[in-house]
């Protein structure tokens, strides 16, 4: 058990930190974009250039042969700088492409293709267990029928990875040049390529989403760290009633609770990255990380605004943007409640949760 990073990892982290600082959104007087950010090709190219997009994939598949740990370092820096990207989504898609030994992976890694997963379905809650999109066909000839969406970064995606119900179970398909209406992709007997067949589809999808969970948890960790630090600094510098806010014990006690939440999320995220690097199919650890980060992110996001007061509500100040992003991340790849329900169904599998294996 070792939480320290080596010099190569440190170099990667520093490179991405520098990149993220350059690509970070600028706030200040006047209107700024809020909420989900569109795809930014420049940021994406820069990420491809530092090799971020290929980190967790084997070298012989066109990846860089690093792991979820390096993914976590990258995503943490993006989150800390408030840079929203398709990083997690591309890694989920890339993980499926890697499982399928798809040639497209190299284009994903070099940034020339933007491949994203189409997991959500209109009018349906989050589920990895089923898909209302149906696949029919065989061999090289498949068609899909049904709808998926909202699809992240639909405006920019060149390809979709689509889970669909096929004979024998859930299979994973690639759709090229998808078309969208309001972020929804509707397949009407549309041609698709099978990436992973029904025998392995659910397993490959779970592993891919686990990697995505590591990426978004890490991004959340960066955002929580930044929002907490801003809040602590604000308490030190902002005066009210003639004294700094840190004079008010109710605020400093709550700041301490924020710090505890942050540290719990940090430990859990780092551990989960190591665990998923080791066993991409360890969905229990991914779910536990999603729960801990979801709860910490909610706590820190809400308190960061509350302890700032009015200024925290404004778009010209960064802290509310972090809360916005944390709110989204808690509902990405399954929310806290859904991961708890999943964990609750497997309590009998183990006596205790063993982290020292």
């Amino acid at each position, binding site marked *: 058990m070792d939480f320290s990073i080596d010099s190569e990892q440190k170099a990667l982290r520093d490179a991405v930190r520098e990149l993220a600082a350059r690509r970070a959104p600028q706030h200040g007087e006047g209107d700024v974009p809020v909420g989900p950010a569109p795809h930014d090709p420049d940021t994406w190219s820069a990420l491809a250039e530092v090799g971020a997009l290929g980190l967790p994939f084997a070298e012989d598949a066109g990846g860089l042969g690093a792991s979820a740990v390096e993914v976590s370092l990258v995503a943490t820096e993006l989150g800390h700088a408030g840079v929203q990207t398709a990083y997690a989504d591309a890694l989920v898609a890339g993980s499926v492409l890697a499982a399928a030994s798809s040639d497209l992976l190299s284009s994903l890694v070099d940034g020339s293709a933007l491949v994203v997963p189409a997991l959500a379905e209109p009018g349906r809650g989050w589920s990895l267990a089923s898909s209302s999109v149906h696949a029919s066909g065989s061999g090289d000839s498949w068609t899909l029928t049904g709808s998926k969406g909202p699809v992240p970064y639909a405006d920019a995606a060149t390809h979709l990875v689509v889970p669909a119900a096929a004979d024998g179970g859930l299979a994973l398909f690639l759709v090229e040049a998808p078309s969208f209406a309001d972020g929804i992709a509707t397949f009407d007997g549309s041609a698709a390529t099978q990436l992973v067949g029904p025998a392995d589809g659910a397993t490959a999808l779970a592993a891919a989403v686990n990697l995505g969970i590591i990426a978004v948890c890490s991004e959340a960790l960066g955002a929580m760290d930044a929002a907490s630090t801003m809040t602590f600094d604000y308490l030190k510098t902002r005066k009210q009633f003639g004294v700094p806010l840190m004079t008010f014990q109710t605020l400093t006690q709550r700041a301490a609770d924020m710090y505890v939440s942050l540290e719990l999320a940090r430990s859990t995220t780092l551990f989960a990255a190591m665990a998923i690097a080791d066993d991409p199919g360890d969905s229990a650890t991914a779910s536990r990380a999603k729960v801990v980060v979801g709860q910490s992110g909610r706590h820190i996001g809400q308190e960061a605004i509350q302890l700032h007061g009015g200024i925290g509500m*404004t778009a010209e100040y960064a802290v509310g943007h972090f809360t916005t992003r944390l709110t989204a991340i808690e509902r990405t790849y399954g*929310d806290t409640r859904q991961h708890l329900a999943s964990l609750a169904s497997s309590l009998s599998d183990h006596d205790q949760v063993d982290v020292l294996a």
Partner: protein
Amino acid sequence: MQHRLSPDDAAFQQKMREFFTSKVPQDLRDRWAAGGEPDPDDIRTAQRILNAEGLAVPHWPVEYGGSDWSMLQRHIYLQEMQAASVPPPLAFNANMVGPVIAAFGSTEQKDRFLPPTANLDIWWCQGFSEPDAGSDLASLRTTAVRDGDEWVVNGQKTWTTLGQHADWIFALVRTDPDAPKKQMGISFLLIEMSTPGVDIRPIQLIDGGHEVNEVFFDNVRVPADQLVGEVNKGWDYAKFLLGNERVGVAPVGSIKRKLAEAKEHAGSVQTDTGTLLDDPLLAARIAELEAQVMALELTVLRVAANSREGKPDPASSTLKLRGSQLQQDVLELIVDIAGPAGLAWGDDSWTGLAAPTYLNFRKASIYGGSNEVQRQVISSGILGLKG
């Protein structure tokens, strides 16, 4: 003790329900129910419909349009209004400046301002908060210096909600900088927004909307007859205004409507085994919120019966505190129900509005006295814990 409505109150309830659901246009109420940035014309239309029926300012003196209702009737009125998604009469008019003018203004001021205030012919905004004050409202630095028959105002206000639509602003200004305490030497001034030297800048919030503003005063000359009550007594009037009422301080009807919508939404989201309303954890959370909102509503009803009208009232703090918490909890629940669909913003569907609305209402525990201030009022005003 009696939990059923009296026949009179039941009839009153029925009358309100019928009025709100039949006399205020459905399309207007649908827009209000959907949320998002409010349309000022809808607010004007609704208030005028209410005012025509004598229902815009029921808690004002009867001679200026008020009704001599019981606290329970006022609660029923608000509950039915919110249940029907009728935009409430603009708070700055109906609950803030109106009661202050009615209680402390000159007869001339009452006659001049109250009718257009009730009818929203004047749209008021509030000039209390300042950039460096935060919860320490009394540390305000905007000054008004007497010059002949005028006050000359300089300074800046902020968090001025819906100020961009306003015709007038009621502002706290410092008229005696040498007063021994910061709460002294403050006056309550009415200023027309079109007066030269008044400038307004909208502030964008994290949901993308622009409901608050900064207001700048640069040598703004205000006729002396626009000062309400006595010079240097403005803080008393502000306290009166802020602690004015228990009924309405917690938006129970709106919370209940949102919670009912949440159930409807949950029933519309399919899962592998049914709908989200069948999800045991989500359903238990809804049940819990229903119980907690019931407890809040009952507390509103119980403490309203003991109201000390016109005095700052620590019981209001209980309702404001708990009301904002539950409002935020229900809006957060809707983000959960929206799930992956809520990750996309930018359309007016309930899923698209879920997250921005939740984020917007983080303000509820900050504006109008933060929850920390409310707890302070409770602990010192009710519990006698003087720090």
